[in-house]
């Protein structure tokens, strides 16, 4: 039973679990949102390399965000949040509560937090720090250790690559849409039409050449972590295009180490709001292949605060259904017992 359990939750090497013999080290992203400048080069590079159709065009009223969220044709999405002093203080407080609990991998007493923080507060009081901040974060598929989309796919279209990533095979997917409902992050989506969409009636320039790419419709689509580029040793297009190294790519172990170092460095400077997301292999999805450094609660960025892969509960779900099925058979049998028809 423990093997079965390990397949559904907990820390593990997903490539080996999927049957790869002697796979290369697991690859992943570390997206450091504290140095993201919101240039959207990652969004553009992703669209270009993967030949994704234009899906939306227009203003959303949500700061500089005009791609709304991850979807079938948006595999990198840059989120913009504008915050004032109150919210910054709350984020700092919630981050400090995490540090007090010993997360993420911080050694209590390793630094003089109070001194660093009072320095930051002093800077704020003297006007050297602004009372307004941007949160800018480039979101992407998490390539979960326990990927719900892959688990529930009935056709085998979604598979675990040798790099530990999760990839859709276009020619296998029959568009059942189960993965869409299963993803705890709302990443994967069924592409309904390959043309250009609009936001609230804003007309699109959809008749131009690029919109008419041959992107397949009726099937699920999401980030492949540039599976094609990995095969020739090239980094994913988004990481290659990022001008600030906000998006880093490499062996997942290295990404985890860098993320931990970075969050410790930020804490040492008094930025207690910094925290890691997806870096803990003991979380509800066994850790992600895309680690993020956030400056506020995950839900502020549109990320679930405590995602758990749905198949974590699958053995119990099946058990309950088994009892229900037996109840049905017994009930039907009982209906036919007793006296003959009147």
């Amino acid at each position, binding site marked *: 039973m423990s093997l079965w359990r390990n397949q559904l939750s907990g820390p593990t090497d997903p490539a080996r679990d999927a049957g790869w013999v002697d796979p290369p080290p697991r690859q992943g992203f570390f997206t450091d949102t504290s140095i993201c400048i919101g240039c959207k080069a990652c969004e553009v590079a992703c669209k270009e390399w993967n030949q994704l159709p234009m899906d939306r065009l227009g203003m959303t009223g949500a700061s500089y965000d005009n791609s709304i969220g991850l979807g079938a044709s948006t595999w990198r999405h840059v989120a913009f949040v504008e915050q004032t002093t109150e919210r910054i203080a709350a984020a700092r407080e919630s981050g400090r509560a995490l540090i007090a*609990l*010993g997360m993420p991998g911080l050694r209590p007493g390793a630094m003089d937090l109070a001194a660093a923080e009072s320095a930051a507060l002093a800077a704020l009081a003297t006007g050297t720090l602004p009372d307004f901040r941007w949160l800018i974060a480039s979101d992407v598929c998490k390539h979960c250790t326990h990927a719900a989309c892959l688990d529930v796919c*009935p056709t085998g279209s979604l598979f675990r690559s040798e790099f530990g990533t999760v990839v859709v095979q276009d020619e296998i997917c*029959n568009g059942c849409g189960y993965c*869409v409902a299963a993803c705890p992050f*709302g990443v*994967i989506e069924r592409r309904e039409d390959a043309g250009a969409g609009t936001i609230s009636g804003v007309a699109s320039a959809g008749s131009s050449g690029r919109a008419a790419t041959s992107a397949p419709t009726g099937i699920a689509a999401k980030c492949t972590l540039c599976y094609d580029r990995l095969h020739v040793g090239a980094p994913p297009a988004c990481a290659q295009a990022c001008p600030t190294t906000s998006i880093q790519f490499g062996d997942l172990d290295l990404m985890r180490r860098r993320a931990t170092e970075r969050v410790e460095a930020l804490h040492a400077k008094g930025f207690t709001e910094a925290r890691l997301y997806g870096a803990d292999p003991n979380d509800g999805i066994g850790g992600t292949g895309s680690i993020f450094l956030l400056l506020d609660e995950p839900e502020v960025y549109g990320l679930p605060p405590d995602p758990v892969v749905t198949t974590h509960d699958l053995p119990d779900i099946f058990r309950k259904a088994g009892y229900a*099925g037996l109840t049905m058979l017994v009930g039907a049998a009982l209906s036919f017992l007793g006296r003959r028809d009147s």
Partner: protein
Amino acid sequence: MVPEAQFASYYGRNIVKPAPWGHEIPAYLFLGGLAAGSALVAAGGEMTGRRELQRNGRLIALGALGGSTYALISDLGKPSRFHHMMRTVKLTSPMSIGSWILAGFGAFTGVAALSEVVKEVAPNQGRDLPMAWFWPYGDRLASIGAGFFSAPLAAYTAVLLSDTATPTWHAAYRELPFVFVGSALAAAGGTAMVTTTTRECAPARRMAVGGAILETGAFALLERQIGVPGETLHRGRAGRLLKLAKALTIGGAALTVVGGRWRPSAVAAGLALATASALTRFGVVEAGMESAKDPRYTVVPQKQRLAARRAQAAIDAASEITGLPSAQALAEQA
């Protein structure tokens, strides 16, 4: 009622995505349940010598199965690739398991229905056909086979919904299969009451009433434990559908008890129960869709879970410092 919890979100946008499913999917859930229940009605009829119940049950099972399969395939993004469901057997995918259940059920139900059709059209009820001596054995095998697959067919549709990140569906996983098998029994019993003379229908009436009680009771338990994601079961269109379903279920069951032996009232009761079963599926599916579209149902339960875990961690840490055993350690000792 649970008080409105405050939570942050990204411009109020949903976090998880709703399943890209149309009305075909709740229709499929209803017809699949009706097919499963009718196969049991037919199997019981065959084993207890109720010929009309057997024939009608088998034909309804095949018809409902055909309808549900059509609904399932037409809702695919690529219907021409429906057979890709059969590329693999995957235990972690309820849809894969369901496809194989549907295939197994279909094989036996198809044979069973064919047997009834031949009996109707062949001269002398087919007794002069070659191998006619084998017929009773074949009938019994078809009954057992269809009966074997019927319970998984009715119950797995609840697993299909619950094994997702859709908040209301997942949070309902403990009771939903009981709601669905109860609903399937009520629908099948009700449909038999509509189509078959009251003389043979005593088991169908018992099945209908039992199914209605199971469905209503399991749904009441579901509402009690589900917490915040259960709000969508009471709001908007889903709330109206489920309220109507409950009224029709209880009304149909009561009418079955009182007037089930008189054909006109049996027909009315049967129609009410079958309609209620369909409304239950449409309501549950709709409630899930709404829960996926609102970040509240993703964020609030997860924040509650986090807060509980962090409170526990703080207690554990405190006990480590003071040297006193933690509540968890005490519980384990006990």
